[in-house]
């Protein structure tokens, strides 16, 4: 046991509910906003042992914990928090890993305020228990111990599975299958594994060291990661099935950037957030010219959008020295980004132009961006998503002088793989159709999960899909019906 247990301050049964609720939510130490606006180091610094124990003590250990239902993968939240409260981070990490493969990632990037923390009982009257920060604490504690405990690996099943994509869905699926005794190869199009965790989410929010540690962990389970492999080009799904893969899990994400189709969008200085972030994160352009890849930062940058991607692009541009203006067509309440990121962006000095929508980008004679024209919006009737639909205010157009525009209005599924796989059924948005319960696709032996099925979603949902995919592939390869109930029914019929 670690020496953490010695400073166990509360945690025990001695505190009453009321006393627990009276403890204020423990703030997480953060880098000063002025300091961090100039560097790429992580913003939040993490709880100390004492802070973690204090925060864990706020949990009421509910008999019917609401938080668990709010967690997309159903982590036994009170159990892991109880372990922390009792100075047992090892026990906490074991509990977490029953459901999530990469708690160090989830603790940092999950939108807890819309999930577990939104429904936490303490949150009804006070601020909810800081579940995400505690998750991060437990994971960081484990990392500090050096080698992660290696789980048991089942004897070889003599079957081989190919996984397409090394984002959270692919990594999780591969890790689970390896533990079950399958030989697993991940094929990744880029030169580095990790998916969005590597090329999209910036260092200051999710240090790449953590992502590569998770990738190495998956490799330590026996998974081979082949980078530089574009499935649909270097090899097709049919090639994979014909050449020694007994099953395939497709987790190639939703990486195709969407543009607005407004005039001036192809001017020099207009980038997709994917391009901007890929240059900065994957290619390390923030270290140019030590690293070869250039990045155009600009003096005054407009970032279009209000999600995590927009926030990440804006805060990256800010760190590279730009004056950053975010343009979002709805109001702040509707911004899909995590609350914490919006808050951090404001603190760092990013200016928000809410209820504004770009209508055109104006260039100079050399083809470079000079201005962006926006129109003001007001909120009308709610749309299908339940959010009030923004409608333009006639005659309210105005221009902001800018030299770079970053489009962060969303991504769609990339057709490179699907176009080369005609037997794969797609929906009208180009996402792969998969059974919601089993993730089976229209092709025998081929399963799919993560953003490629759901459209751009979250890291935790992608991980959940990876687990489901692994379970289904295991059943498929053992010749069992994919749905356990179906098996039970057959058993019933047999005994009847």
């Amino acid at each position, binding site marked *: 046991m670690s020496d953490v247990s010695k400073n166990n301050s509360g945690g025990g049964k001695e505190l009453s509910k009321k006393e627990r609720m009276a403890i204020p939510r423990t703030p997480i130490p953060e880098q000063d906003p002025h300091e961090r606006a100039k560097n790429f180091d992580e913003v939040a610094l993490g709880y100390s042992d004492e802070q973690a124990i204090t925060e864990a003590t706020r949990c009421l250990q509910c008999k019917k914990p609401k938080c668990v239902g709010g967690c997309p993968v159903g982590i036994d939240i009170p159990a892991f928090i109880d372990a922390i409260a009792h100075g047992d981070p090892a026990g906490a990490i074991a509990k977490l890993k029953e459901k999530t493969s990469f708690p160090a990632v989830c603790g940092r990037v999950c939108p807890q305020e819309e999930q577990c923390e939104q429904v936490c009982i303490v949150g009804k009257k006070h601020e909810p228990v800081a579940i995400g920060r505690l998750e991060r604490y437990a994971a960081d504690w484990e990392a500090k111990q050096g080698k992660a405990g290696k789980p048991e690996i089942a004897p070889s099943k003599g079957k081989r599975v190919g996984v397409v994509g090394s984002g959270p869905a692919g990594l999780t699926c591969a890790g689970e299958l390896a533990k079950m005794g399958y030989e697993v190869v991940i094929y990744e199009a880029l*030169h580095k594994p990790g998916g969005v965790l590597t090329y999209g989410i910036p260092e200051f929010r999710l240090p790449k060291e953590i992502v590569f540690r998770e990738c190495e962990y998956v490799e330590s389970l026996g998974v081979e990661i082949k980078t530089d492999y*574009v499935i649909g080009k*270097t090899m097709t799904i049919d090639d994979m099935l014909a050449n020694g893969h007994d099953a395939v899990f497709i987790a190639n994400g939703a*990486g195709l950037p969407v*543009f607005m189709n407004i005039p001036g969008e192809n001017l020099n200085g207009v980038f997709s957030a994917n*391009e901007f972030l890929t*240059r900065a994160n994957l290619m390390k352009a923030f270290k140019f010219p030590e690293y070869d890849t250039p990045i155009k930062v600009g003096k005054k940058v407009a970032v279009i959008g209000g999600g995590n991607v927009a926030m990440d692009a804006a805060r990256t541009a800010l760190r590279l020295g730009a004056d950053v203006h975010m343009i979002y067509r709805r109001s702040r309440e509707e911004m899909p980004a995590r609350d914490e990121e919006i808050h951090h962006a404001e603190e760092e000095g990013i200016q928000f132009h809410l209820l504004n929508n770009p209508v055109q980008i104006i260039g100079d004679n050399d083809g470079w961006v000079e201005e962006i024209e926006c129109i003001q919006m007001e909120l009308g009737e709610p749309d299908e998503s339940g959010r009030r639909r923004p409608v333009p205010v006639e005659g309210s157009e105005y221009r902001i002088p800018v030299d770079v525009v970053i489009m962060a209005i969303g991504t769609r599924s990339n*057709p*490179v793989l699907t176009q080369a796989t005609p037997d794969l059924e797609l929906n009208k948005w180009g996402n792969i159709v998969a059974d919601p319960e089993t993730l089976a696709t229209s092709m025998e032996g081929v399963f799919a999960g993560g953003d490629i099925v759901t459209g751009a979603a979250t890291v935790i949902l992608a991980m959940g899909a990876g687990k489901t995919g692994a379970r289904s592939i295991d059943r498929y390869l053992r010749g069992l019906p994919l749905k356990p109930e179906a098996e039970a029914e057959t058993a019933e019929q047999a005994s009847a």
Partner: protein
Amino acid sequence: MYKILEKEDYSDDTYMQVIEAPAVARAAKAGQFVIVRLHEEGERIPLTIADFDRDKGTVTIVVQAVGKTTRELQTYGVGDSIANLIGPLGVPSEIENFGTVICAGGGVGVAPVFPIARELKAAGNKVISIVAARTKSLILWEDRMREVSDEVIVTTDDGSYGRKCLVTEPLKELCEEGGVDLVYAIGPAIMMKFCCKTTEPFGVKTVVSLNSIMVDGTGMCGACRVAVDGETKFVCVDGPEFDGHAVDFDLLMSRQRQYLEQEKIAYDYYLECRGDKACLT
């Protein structure tokens, strides 16, 4: 790591490398390209597959050194390895028996034209090739082009070899003579633009292979976008080949200049340090 098995310098600025990449060679088709990254600090750059050998598991690239990465790659010799080689990317050339096809290559553009001409010839076309360059020392692969063409016309801007004219002159003459069913024109953007201007009045379909700036080469970033028929296309996944008469070449050329300032910094930095790590930090 991808090992260089053969290397040949064609001039001070142009060279050929044969690289071991079995998976890419197995799937490669005429008209496709690879993305290459030399080392950990390297940039990803696109290079056309000028030839491939499925049995030996190799792909051939022909490169003109124009900046940091292409100059650095020139220093890689037989036995050296490059960190990443990704492909084959892009949509392969559409090959069928069109009748008479002109294959025009400008500068290193001749190399990417070669596998296309070879396929077109094999499909039964009459292939007339135009091998063009600024000056004699920059003419390359004339011998290979002769092997796969019914007729080869060589031009240099300065008249040091072949006809003294631009590539567009014989192209225009052939169009005037008539009977041309298709033109392939690959080379610098300006050369492709003028080839298209030449063929347009004759209504001869002209396919070009666009060389926009790229990052991933898999449709993920949009850096490579161009306008074709007024619609935005991604060169890496929708191309690289397009109907040249519908391409906005001025936009392409403007977008190619997007990083000029940084490219110069990177190149100077490289020349100063010549890969000396200690100097770089």
